[in-house]
């Protein structure tokens, strides 16, 4: 199925939850936050949300700001 992650489209075969997805993408040791389809997904819900086809996922981390 096709999803969009940080503005780039990507294909993933089997459905997985956010937790598995972050592991598979190599974010395990990173300080990040996640939104799916413009809705915030709390860390505590990573296991509960199963990624759907066409999901738009944002993964963000601390950055300089004013």
């Amino acid at each position, binding site marked *: 199925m096709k999803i969009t992650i*940080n*503005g780039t489209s990507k294909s993933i075969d089997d459905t997985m939850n956010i937790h598995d997805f972050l592991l598979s*993408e*190599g*974010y395990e*040791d*990173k*300080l*990040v*936050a*996640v*939104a799916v389809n*413009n*809705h*915030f997904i*709390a*860390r505590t819900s990573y296991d509960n949300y199963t990624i759907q086809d066409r999901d738009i996922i*944002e*993964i*963000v*981390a*601390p*950055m*300089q*700001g*004013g």
Partner: protein
Amino acid sequence: MTQTWDINGAELSSRLFLGTAEYSSLDALRQSIESSAPGLITVSLRRENAAGKGQSFWNIIKEFDIPVLPNTAGCYGVEEAVTTAEMAREVFDTNRIKLEVIGDDYTLQPDPYGLLLATEKLIDKGFEVYPYMTDDLVLAQRLVDLGCNILMPWGSPIGSGRGLNNVYALRQLRERFPDKTLVIDAGLGAPSHAAQAMEMGYDAVLLNTAVAKAGNAPLMASAFAKAIEAGRSAYLSGIIAKQEHATPSTPLLDKPFWHQEKS
């Protein structure tokens, strides 16, 4: 010699809020924080890849025992701003959010409509909102009515270095909201601008470009820190009133040659 002060129950060690963007290097950023010892440090969120480029920045900020103020910079939409705030709360582990809802591309003016909507939602979600706003008195009243204890009017457009574009409006805000925490956010260029704002009774100043883009960022950071202390002390001390004419500082009583003609 600097006094700590209270903002919404938190104790801050300085009235300077310093931004972390636009420095020539992370080292320049670190030195600027060291030289100015800000009360709050503003940070942001950006898309992260697996390489984790954001992590090195964050490791530097964590070194300092200074509370952070995450922003929603660049958000034009209400939902976007709210979701960004929620992600920021989780990442930075703070309820504080500098709420930016931008209404114009050229001036980066806050959108007085979207700002109210986003503020209401975020206060419902338990955030402590630091609204980046214009100097509009009616907007200020609406934000206060929604529960804001802190208001952050702009001095002039972000990064413009123009200082205080509308001293009259800013003076009105201070006069009308004596019990709220008022912070000048954006547009300052020189320490004299920050001193002027503090002399008017503003509680703090938030800066970024004026320091980060200065010829020598750490030196400019310390300059602003001093100017803010100077302006605060002047406000507490009480500034002399302007006079139309001169009054001699050196008393003329017992002046020698008093009988003399003027040449």
